[in-house]
């Protein structure tokens, strides 16, 4: 009775039906197109092909020049070392904090600190740290002269130390909150409470039990974020300009220097360096994979040994993790406080802990000049966030309406823009945007920001979107509402809080972008971030304080709105309070 087979999927209104199913594909194209095209656009000049600068055909000369640079071995070693150290430290700290404290009241406090810490842009956090640890920074002032005997700032290379230690520390303060957030998301899916209780009932101490039972499940889910942290730490530019060593700098910073050099022939060398940076990141990811395998093997042996863990040692470990985590958070918070004080400081001589006078003069002097970069920052971030939200919602709704199921492999694609080093494709993206005539404009910068904003918006919205109870949909449809009305009148209002949070995340990501703004904007699009980082070399702490605070405020304000707005809108709706 083949004839009796009836199609279950009811026919949908045809109006938008032929556009919406393409949304996921369009989203991928917008996100990955610039990455792939940019990589090709970098590879060509690296192999000597850049007709605009007189390079045609294929040659290895750019790589020969790159390898002839005496600073290369050190720059490469720095990139690898900083990347691995920052990633391993961040992961270890996050793991121990979760193993020691997940589910406790202390952990609840840590969770509440997370969003504000995450919203501080990398550059602002790095400046804050610099204000603290510099030889004339707050820590030295607090110890001088009574403990250190210093009447002058000591001649120590703490900041921008040649080994990159302050850079590692700066990265850890920002990557710990990020990894912690990702781990929290994984924890809500794994529901570790019961497994941990079973382990504890079998006599395992808390941390050992958590590491043996929960960690393997969690790590599987945070692998991509960890890879993103590794790739980012290896190739970061703005933080490395502020905190990293100078002679030589990390490879990524050197590539950007060559790219901004008035001598255009250095572009070939820069492209070769960008390709090498990509190779380094790939090598780093491969090495990390090997380390994963080794740790997994050791872990299996440790689990098979049945060791229960010693309570006293574990208490020390728990305490240590908490202290280090608090230190990382404190560094960011105290750094921001330092910026506030510097931005209001009159005369402030070295060993003094406080400035002689508090004045608004710095704000009066730099404030008027802020308005241009502020507007530029808000317009770019607003546009990139709006586009990212639109594409994300269209993709999620298309999946919902047309029963499309994203493959698990699709998640890799989402992380690709966060893993491919920015220098490696932005340079090509810049060349291509010159070729297509959108060079140096705000529109090109918005598109470049969208590449990085989209993954974050998608990642933060997709879980709450899918967690929404589908029976709400059935109920609303059974009451006669079509899919559009269900979306606008039921689903989006109910998901207002995660929507606003996703928007705030996207906005903060855009505000913090340094390299895409600098390279794609060809140096002509001035945002708070590019202006602040440009001040790094000058060392005028009052100006830096003003710009870094403005940058932090631009990133933080949307988070505050995202928390406050639902509270005001739903003040009479008890059921929406923790939704």
């Amino acid at each position, binding site marked *: *009775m083949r004839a*009796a*087979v*009836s*199609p*279950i*999927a*009811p*026919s*949908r*209104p045809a109006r938008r039906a032929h556009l919406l199913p393409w949304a996921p594909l369009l989203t991928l194209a917008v996100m990955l197109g610039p990455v792939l095209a940019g990589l090709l656009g970098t590879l060509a000049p690296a192999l000597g092909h850049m007709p605009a600068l007189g390079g045609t055909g294929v040659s290895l000369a750019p790589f020969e020049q790159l390898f002839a640079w005496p600073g290369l071995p050190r720059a490469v070693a720095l990139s690898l070392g900083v990347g691995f150290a920052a990633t391993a430290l961040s992961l270890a700290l996050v793991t121990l904090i979760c193993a020691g404290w997940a589910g406790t009241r202390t952990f609840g406090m840590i969770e509440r600190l997370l969003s504000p810490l995450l919203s501080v842009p990398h550059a602002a956090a790095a400046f804050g740290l610099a204000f603290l640890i510099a030889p004339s920074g707050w820590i030295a002032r607090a110890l001088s002269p009574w403990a250190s005997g210093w009447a002058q700032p000591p001649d120590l290379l703490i900041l921008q130390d040649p080994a990159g230690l302050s850079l590692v520390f700066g990265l850890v303060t920002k990557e710990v909150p990020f990894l912690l957030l990702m781990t929290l998301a994984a924890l809500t899916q794994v529901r570790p409470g019961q497994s941990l209780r079973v382990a504890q009932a079998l006599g395992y101490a808390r941390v050992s039990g958590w590491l043996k039972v929960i960690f393997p499940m969690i790590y599987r889910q945070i692998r991509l974020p960890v890879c993103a942290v590794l790739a980012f730490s290896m190739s970061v530019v703005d933080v490395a300009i502020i905190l990293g060593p100078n002679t030589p700098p990390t490879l990524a910073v050197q590539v950007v220097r060559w790219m901004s050099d008035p001598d255009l022939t250095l572009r070939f060398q820069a492209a070769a360096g960008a390709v090498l940076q990509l190779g380094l990141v790939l090598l780093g990811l491969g090495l990390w994979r090997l380390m994963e395998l080794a740790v997994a093997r050791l872990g299996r042996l440790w689990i098979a040994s049945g060791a229960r863990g010693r309570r006293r040692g574990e208490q020390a470990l728990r305490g240590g993790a908490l202290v280090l985590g608090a230190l990382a958070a404190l560094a960011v918070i105290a750094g921001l406080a330092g910026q506030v004080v510097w931005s209001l400081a009159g005369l402030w001589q070295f060993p003094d802990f406080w400035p002689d006078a508090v004045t608004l003069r710095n704000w009066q002097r730099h404030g008027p000049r802020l308005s241009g970069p502020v507007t530029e920052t808000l317009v770019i971030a607003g546009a990139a966030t709006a586009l990212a939200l639109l594409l994300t919602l269209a993709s999620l709704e298309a999946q919902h309406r047309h*029963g499309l199921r994203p493959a698990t492999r699709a998640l890799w694609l989402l992380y690709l823009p966060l893993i491919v080093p920015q220098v490696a494709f932005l340079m090509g993206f810049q060349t291509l945007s010159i070729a297509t005539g959108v060079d140096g404009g705000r529109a090109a910068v918005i598109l470049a920001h969208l590449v990085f904003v989209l993954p974050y918006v998608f990642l933060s919205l997709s879980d709450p979107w899918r967690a929404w*109870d*589908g*029976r*709400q*949909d*059935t*109920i*609303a*449809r*059974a*009451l*006669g*509402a*079509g*899919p559009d009305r269900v979306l606008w*009148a*039921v689903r989006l*209002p*109910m998901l*207002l809080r995660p929507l606003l949070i996703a928007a705030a995340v996207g906005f903060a990501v855009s505000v913090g972008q340094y390299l895409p703004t600098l390279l794609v904007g060809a140096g002509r699009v001035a945002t708070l971030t590019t202006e602040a980082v440009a001040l790094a070399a000058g060392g005028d702490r009052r100006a830096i304080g003003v710009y870094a605070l403005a940058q932090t405020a631009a990133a933080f304000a949307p988070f505050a709105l995202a928390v406050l707005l639902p509270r005001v809108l*739903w003040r*009479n*709706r*008890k*059921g*929406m309070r923790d*939704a």
Partner: protein
Amino acid sequence: MPEARGLRFEHVAISLGRARLIALDCTIGPGEVLTVMGPSGSGKSTLLAAITGTLDPVFAMTGRIRLDGRDLMRLPTEARRIGILFQDEYLFPHLSVGANLAFGLKPEVRGRAARRARIEAALAEVGLAGFAGRDPATLSGGQRARVALQRMLLAEPRALLLDEAFSKLDTGLRAQVRELVFDTARRRALPVLQVTHDHSDAAAAGGEVVVLG
């Protein structure tokens, strides 16, 4: 064609891979109740999803479901005119009680005053006069159940599905709400299909009982 009235299952079979979950060929007449019982996983909710048009594509279905003669299979959920009540009321938490009812009231009732009057009347009918401005989260379980029922009825469904609709209510309230629902369905001549694992629900419905699984 008087025999065309009601909810009719024509050789309906639902399967998952090779396993056949449900086979049904019957008619629920206006005002009649069919109770489907079975343990969880026996496909009760799958049957309801097939009727509302929200069946997961992993299931394969053959046969035809008609409501008052209309073939439902080609219609989207919102055009099927099937009312459904779940164990949870699913009152939209962001809307007031009145706005929840307005969501159900069909747009053909025009004019703000006329719509408000219909909603007020629907609330008064179940002893909730003056509740339109309330936050649904502040209602008691029995009040929520009555609001959910009225919201559904304002959409003027032609059949009623009950998915364990009473299982969260405690015994006293349960009998009361159940009586209200079945009385209303009988008065409005709605065919009712309920799935439940509770025998008292089946007994209260009084109609035919099909056991799955």
